[in-house]
């Protein structure tokens, strides 16, 4: 019989639409104002923390809507924005600095829906306000650091093997090692080659000048860059957590860039300071054999360098780094017995071993703490990248009194510096400096405006399209309108279902555009049906032919649009990607609703009956 869908097809259509609707429903519930509590290093959020927070809020007269403990973080929902601020203050004060307390907007989806995987669409920064940073890692600096480490390696290896060398230095190509004669060069080359297969050695001797050039191999260079990026991402992630931002995004983009998105953050200055700061410390032995006057005149012994002291004056330090900030696992600002600010430092096991060895061998000798910081100089290199300024200062020189272990203190800082240094050290040092190459801040009011205007545009256009279809195609227009509405609901449902999909303003534009284009499928089908009726076919035949003939047009035209959307998605970034995602989803759902969905309704209403005229 013509135009009768089998039962299973009808069930399938109903099922798919029901699933779409089901996952779209969470978007109706809106969001709760909430306070999020996350433990930082060493602490843990437990049920007792939860009980304490609940009790505390109850005593302050703040009504708690719901309090959830999940994956080590506590989320307390309250009634409104005023109570949220109050609650944050109260909790932060009571819990102390081992926890970060952040404001959050939590989806108000009921528990039962949530347990079935229902959650609302995630809103992009342009819809809820916040900061977006694109940061670039200074790879030149990462490579230079690696080369410096290699120089120290070569020195100790050659010394161990008792091969005499005249000097090692870093030049534009890589590392150059000079020798006095050809034999030591040959044996050094043999020995070093066997030890480090990630460097490429070549003899660059000129006449009596015996020299060996060591250059990083391609694969090693790539690995160094990759590691630098990965480590910086980890570090930045830690720092973002210290900032107490809810739902931050930290992800890589390309070979040397990192995207950081902080929803709801308004204080960009502080965010930047913490994210971009590359403060680190290094411990060097003071070169006490160096003549201070000679050093001032520029004559510095090989292997040593002159550094500025923070309180003025200069000091000669050995170039070799005893310990870097990488081994620091904890750092807390505190005060010593004379109430001077200090930073207590904890090292990891490896750092502890190194440090204990170094201090054991050097009891009674002075050791310096070198503070290194990179700052945006405000100038740019020829290629447009930000020129970074390296600032090195000796913050303290102390005589090693005893063998030190994994815990010790650094003094010689101001209160603010101690606070900042502790925070930065806790979050780990950036292996290479980063600069901000792109920054976007959207105020929360603009976000709300964007949503409102997007929805406004959607309502207007939807109204116009619905009205037109109804007048022009009557009963069939009504069916198309039902399909259009279902289509919109399904886009929302699919967007909510896909974990990575984020709704942005261009995404809303994509949805709105889908409304305009979605009826195309139905228009094609209906025009065909009219053609067939005009050509004198029976009603049932006309419906059958209309759907069958229009199919290839609809499929071809949608596939080509889909290709465009796919390319947009592949090359676009941020906003353009958001648009492409909704467009792709829209194409898929509109094909389903316009072809299969309307057919199901048409078949159910008119299918298999003897009718003479059609309301089209």
């Amino acid at each position, binding site marked *: 019989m013509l135009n009768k869908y089998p039962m299973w097809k009808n069930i399938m259509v109903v099922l798919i639409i029901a699933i779409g609707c089901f996952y779209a429903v969470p978007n109706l519930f809106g969001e709760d104002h909430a306070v999020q509590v996350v433990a930082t290093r060493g602490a843990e959020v437990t049920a007792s923390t939860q009980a304490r927070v609940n009790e505390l809020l109850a005593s302050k007269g703040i009504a708690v809507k719901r309090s959830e403990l999940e994956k080590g973080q506590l989320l307390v929902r309250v009634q409104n924005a005023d109570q949220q601020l109050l609650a944050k203050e109260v909790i932060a004060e009571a819990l102390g600095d081992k926890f970060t307390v952040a404001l959050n907007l939590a989806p108000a989806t009921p528990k039962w829906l949530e347990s079935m995987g229902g959650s609302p669409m995630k809103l992009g920064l*342009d819809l809820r306000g916040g900061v977006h940073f*694109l940061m*670039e890692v200074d790879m030149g600096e990462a490579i230079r650091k690696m080369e410096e480490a290699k120089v120290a390696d070569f020195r100790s290896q050659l010394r161990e093997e008792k091969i005499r060398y005249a000097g090692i230095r870093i030049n534009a190509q890589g590392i150059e090692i000079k020798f006095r004669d050809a034999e030591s060069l040959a044996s050094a080359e043999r020995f070093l080659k066997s030890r480090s297969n990630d460097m490429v050695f070549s003899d660059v001797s000129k006449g009596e000048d015996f020299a060996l050039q060591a250059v990083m191999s391609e694969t090693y260079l790539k690995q160094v860059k990759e590691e630098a990026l990965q480590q910086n991402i980890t570090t930045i992630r830690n720092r973002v957590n210290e900032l107490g931002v809810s739902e931050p995004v930290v992800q890589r983009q390309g070979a040397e860039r990192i995207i950081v998105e902080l929803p709801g953050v308004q204080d960009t*200055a502080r965010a930047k300071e913490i994210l971009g700061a590359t403060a680190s410390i290094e411990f060097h032995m003071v070169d006490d054999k160096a003549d201070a006057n000679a050093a001032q005149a520029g004559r510095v012994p090989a292997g040593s360098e002159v550094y500025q002291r923070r309180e003025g004056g200069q000091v000669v330090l050995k170039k070799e780094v005893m310990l870097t900030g990488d081994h620091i696992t904890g750092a807390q600002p505190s005060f010593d017995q004379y109430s001077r600010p200090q930073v207590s430092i904890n090292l990891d096991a490896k750092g502890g071993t190194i440090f204990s060895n170094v201090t054991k061998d050097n009891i009674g000798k002075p050791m310096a703490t070198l503070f290194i910081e990179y700052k*945006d100089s*405000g*100038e*740019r290199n020829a*290629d447009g*990248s*930000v020129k970074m300024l390296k600032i090195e200062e000796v913050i303290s020189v102390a005589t090693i009194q005893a063998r030190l272990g994994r815990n010790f203190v650094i003094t010689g800082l101001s209160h603010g510096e101690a606070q900042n240094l502790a925070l930065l050290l806790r979050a780990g040092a950036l292996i290479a400096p980063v600069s901000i190459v792109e*920054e*976007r*801040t*959207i*105020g929360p*009011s*603009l976000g709300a405006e964007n949503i409102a*205007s*997007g929805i*406004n*545009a959607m309502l*207007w256009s939807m109204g*116009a*399209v619905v009205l*037109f279809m109804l*007048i*022009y195609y*009557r009963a069939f227009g009504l069916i198309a309108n039902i399909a259009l509405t279902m289509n919109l609901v399904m886009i929302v449902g699919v967007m909510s279902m896909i974990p990575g999909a984020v709704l942005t*303003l*261009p995404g809303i*534009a994509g949805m*709105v*555009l889908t*409304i*305009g*284009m979605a*009826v*195309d499928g139905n*228009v094609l089908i209906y*025009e065909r049906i*009219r053609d067939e*009726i005009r050509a004198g076919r029976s009603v049932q035949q006309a419906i059958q032919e209309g759907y069958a*003939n229009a199919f290839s*047009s609809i499929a*071809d035209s*949608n596939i*080509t649009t889909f*290709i*465009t*959307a796919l*390319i*947009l998605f592949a090359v*676009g*970034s*941020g*906003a*353009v990607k958001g*648009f*492409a995602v909704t467009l792709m989803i829209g194409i898929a759902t509109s094909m389903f609703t316009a072809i299969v969905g309307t057919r199901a309704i048409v078949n159910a209403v008119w299918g298999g009956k003897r009718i003479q005229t059609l309301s089209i």
Partner: protein
Amino acid sequence: MLEILSLKRTVNFLKHALPVSIMSAVLVLGSIVLLATKGLNWGLDFTGGTVVEMSFSTPVDLNQFRSQLTTPETSSAVVQNYGSSRDVLVRLPVKEGISSDVQVVEIVKFAQQLDPNVVQKRVEFVGPQVGKELAEQGGLAVLVALICIMIYIAFRFEWRLATGAVAALAHDVMVTLGVFSLTQMEFDLTVLAGVLTVVGYSLNDTIVVFDRVRENFLKMRKSEPEEVVNVSITQTMSRTIITMGTTLVVVVALFLSGGSMIHGFAAALLLGISVGTYSSVYVATYLAIKLGVNRESMMPAEIEKEGADQPSMMP
């Protein structure tokens, strides 16, 4: 049946094809000349720089605001209204030796002198390096899209139609860019997304016509290609008008109430959809006919299909 939008009799569309094609050619040439001489008013996304969007509590005198911006940090700022007279947008190019933060602080300081209750709604900074890469990627995206589409149509239809379709798309893109060059409207990332959407939309149109052309070639075995094309365009005309209408309504709604960030996108679509509708009729099909598309060129697909349905000759 309400049929105000359908045509009763076959219209000889191709009669006007030559003058329209000449007009199209002139438009494209004009666009190329404009792009070569005036260029596009590249937005922040591509050039790099800083944008500050502010909302004042009362209408602002822009000239008074501009007159203050004379410090080295703010001297080349472009100040304009958007939306209402209380909303002000300030654009600053990247400047050697001055960080964007300092520029923003300066601007806001001056704005606060005019109105202490001014709200800073949006701040964007893009490095020049990032912008350059984006421009390259964007151009590449348009190119790759055109090539992929050409391959798909050549595969699904026929190479002459593919060439016609891609020519029509290139035409739409060029004319849209030409208008952006002429009006010096800002060309940013969302506009680029708009242009690519135009590619998708205009193609939609072209494919629908082509699909009917292919069908009619097989149906009307005695007719000349011109007649087949005329019949096909006539048959699809009501659909073309309706779909263009509904899409335009939507885009106009976006243009009017979508907010400042979506304005350029909507403008690109508005232009592209209008141009794309006639180009799918005149540029795409006319070029395909000129390239010699006929009934035979439509046959292979049919033969292939029959072959595929037949049982294999080999055991």
